[in-house]
């Protein structure tokens, strides 16, 4: 079993799993992702920051739900 790698939030704000309310989630648990893929957005001050994976992997689980308030350094999603 490979170790899990966590993606942490660089910003306080609201976490979104999809680009807009009428679009599907960027990724689902179990999906394969490549470095640079977007897994969510964080909105603060009406700016949207794209949360990207830095390495190839498989999405293990999301630690926060869509539209959750998140803080700096909070775990957002883990890869396996």
């Amino acid at each position, binding site marked *: 079993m490979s170790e899990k790698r966590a993606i942490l939030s660089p910003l*306080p704000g*609201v976490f979104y799993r999809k680009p807009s309310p009428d679009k599907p989630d960027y990724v689902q648990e179990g999906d394969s992702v490549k470095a640079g893929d977007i897994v969510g957005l964080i909105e603060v*001050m009406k700016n949207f*920051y794209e949360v990207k994976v830095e390495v190839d992997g498989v999405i293990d689980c999301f630690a926060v739900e869509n539209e959750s*308030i998140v803080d*700096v*350094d909070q775990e957002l999603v883990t890869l396996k």
Partner: protein
Amino acid sequence: MIKVSKPGLQTTVQDKGRIGFYEIGMPPSGAMDQYSYTVANLLVGNQPNAAALEITYLGPELLFEKDMRISLTGGSMPPKINGESVPMWETLAVREGDVLSFDFVKSGARVYLAVEGGIDVPVIMNSRSTYTLIGIGGFQGRPLAAGDVLQTGHMKEKDVPVGSKISDADIPAFGKAHEIRVVVGLCSYRLTEESKQSFLQTEWTVTPEANRIGYRHRGERLQFVERKQPFGAGSNPSNVTDLGYPIGSIQVPDGVEPIVLLHDAVTGGGYATIATVISSDLNRMGQIKTNEKVRFVSVSMIEALQARRETQEKLRRIAASL
């Protein structure tokens, strides 16, 4: 020249602000944490109004295309030059080709980058500050974007040696819960006594909308004294006939979510303003992040003026030591 490789979340050119035009509806803009901005300029030997970069939450990545001295002050957002950690609140040297970047913000919200000579952008109505709401001033009226190239100016007035630093006691610390001093007044008579107490006792939470225009706070609903609304005021009890808004004044539209009006806010309007953040705590207001807690503490005008004098005296002492 400084090339912007990555702009950060909201990096703007700011200085002391656009002073003297408030009565025509032009807010000051300017650095939200004037103390940190002022010290940043002192550390590179600049004139006090030289323009600096105000970096918010997520730092930029900047490529320096000539040798210069820089300094970084404000909230804690660990800086690196070419991947090596460097200190804040100290005079640093960068050489042509060096890259400045930042780790995640650790405390506070905004960092000030001062460069020798200041950032050179057009002066508009006495200031180089970016007025974010309207899109004037600073660099093309907007936050920096990848690919922008900044010129440095000629506002250096003395040589400050690399490695100069200020006393640890003069470096502000920012936690996650903040006590912000306010003078209760102006339209506070519109609140019920119970709501005045609630305003001062509630631990408010800063919402994601917090920005240079204002900080909105989530917590209790506040109630207004019943009255027949006067001519010119809107129908909601939180409305009054229009008045000028002090910088740092707090309005509570419909009694929901107090909003502290800040440096890019409108200068007047029709909401009851119930208290005003004292000038020296505006610096700390600018270092509060979304989700952090705020408690408003009532002080007198005498105490507010004394706090301002203390801040000014501290800055004079720092200036004399460099």
